[in-house]
């Protein structure tokens, strides 16, 4: 018997979440990730203050689809002084669930970080997602959550069901929520 409020069985769902795509180009994630950064707009936009700009960046990330956003200050000597970290709700761990459904949080992350980086470049500041770092460590440093014994991020909003997108490195003046690990 099925109650009216319960979902009918979906025989295709597990494959949608778990099964690797037949061809990698059937997912657009690789294409977005590999796309070269656009150029920086020649005229810099006025920044009221790092505090205000940080609020705007977090609001923009939320509008684009990010669950939670934090900012870290990168170690001295880094090419960019700040990193923007966005986390997304992920019912299934994208590291395990390789199907289209399992990779949906990754796609959300790519959409947000691509556009965040592009907007910052169009504001006249440098921004890139091409620098590979341990995004989960950065998320913990930005105060998005804490690391459990397995090194996984646990957030107040999503618990362990969370995906951290690539970090946006930038020289846009921001007010950091924490210090990035060296």
């Amino acid at each position: 018997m099925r109650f009216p409020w319960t979902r009918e069985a979906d025989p295709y769902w597990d494959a949608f979440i778990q099964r690797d795509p037949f061809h990698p180009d059937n997912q657009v994630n690789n294409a977005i990730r590999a796309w070269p950064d656009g150029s920086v707009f020649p005229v810099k936009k006025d920044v009221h203050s790092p505090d205000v700009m940080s609020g705007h960046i977090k609001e923009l990330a939320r509008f684009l689809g990010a669950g939670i956003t934090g900012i870290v200050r990168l170690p001295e000597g880094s090419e960019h002084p700040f990193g923007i970290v966005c986390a997304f709700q992920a019912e299934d761990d994208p590291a395990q669930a390789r199907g289209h459904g399992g990779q949906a949080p990754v796609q959300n992350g790519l959409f947000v970080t691509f556009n965040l980086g592009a907007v910052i470049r169009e504001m006249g500041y440098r921004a890139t997602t091409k620098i590979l770092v341990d995004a989960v460590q950065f998320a913990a440093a930005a105060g998005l959550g804490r690391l459990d014994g397995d090194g996984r991020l646990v957030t107040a909003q999503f618990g362990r069901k969370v995906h951290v997108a690539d970090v946006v490195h930038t020289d846009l003046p921001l007010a950091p929520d924490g210090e990035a690990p060296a």
Partner: protein
Amino acid sequence: MALSIEPETPRKSSSVEFPIPDLGRTARIVGRVGNVDPQQLPHPQNMRGELGKALFNWMHSTISPDPLARVAFERHAADKNNVIRTTLMKAPKGQISPERVPVDDPAAMTRHIKRVARHLGADVIRIARSHPSFMYGGNPTDGLTTMGGDRPDGTPEDLVRRFPFVIVASKAWDYKLMQAHRHHIGDAAYDFTLERGNLLHSSIAGYVQDLGYHVLRGAMNPQAAALAAGAGELGRNGLIISEKFGPRIHLTDVIMTDLPLLPDKPIDLGVEDFCKVCRKCAVTCPTNSISFEGKQTYNGVEKYKIKWETCYKLRPYTVQYWAQCLTCATVCPYTKPNTWWRDLAIKSLQLTPIPLRPVVVRGLKWLDDRFWGTLPNKRVRWLDYDSGIKPGEKACTVAGCTASHGESQTTQAAGGSIGYYFPLKENTNRFTNRV
């Protein structure tokens, strides 16, 4: 936007194999329907310079002063590598899996595809049965309605036989931001949702290919498919008015497929009855592009028809201040937050017998004018944008800020809840007179 262009060759709309499709109460096929050549759509016409110098320059030589618009709207980008649409258009197309997933129960597959689309971010997802009269009469090559896909050879009938079902998926614009119509804030709501929708379509199409089935994009008029699928009804403003979001949805593309699905049916939201009485979009349209009159029969379809030429020709004059007008979508009484009282209003209209609906419509219209205004002009503050500041003027938008900002931003934005709108209506008779 609703764009009705000269059809290529009129065709018989009905046959034994392809009976006249039901498009609901707001649009009806009454004659021979020609397949519209996508090269005659406004953007391709403009790209060829057929709409005049001002519009040609607007499309080819204008960089938006707004950083968000330069990212979200490729026409006015400074560098197209900063626009995700460029990525999606140039992404490799993927391949169809040779191991086709068997579909014993199309109803189960339909439920699955709808669940998949919602999981990937769709706000509206419906299925239609393909029909030759929905097809474009050529291959769009400008990349606006297709993501680089080439249309296979064959007549519209052949293609409909090969791809008998249509997946209609859409994203809704942010309600709060679109209140700032004729403003960069409204542009952001519109354009980023458009990009998100493009990503959604690419994802669904890729998944269907993984199931072992073919997809075809950019080959069909999305509005016709949306009506047949029951994604909404066609309003006086030429927009598809959806059940949950009103006209604030994007219909950039649909996905034709041979995946066995169960088509939905057209819906009745009372748009037919509402648009007869309301006319709010026609009253407020800054270019007088929306008719006060009844429906027209155009290309064999009886429907409300807007004058796209005048709607389009405003753009070069306003590009410094906004890219998309959006007034007709914002003022539509169906554009409301997705709340229980909105559902209640629509349900009450649906449950009212059709002859009595004008009475209910007048009551709902009165409520709409009373609480949202005859021309909604709510002030929206978002990021460092403020629709209460006259475009072109600079003022600090940070609440409580008393700092001196030098010459560039000299004043603190004034209080109040009313947005600033150019008195366009009085100045745009030129758009009516020239067409």
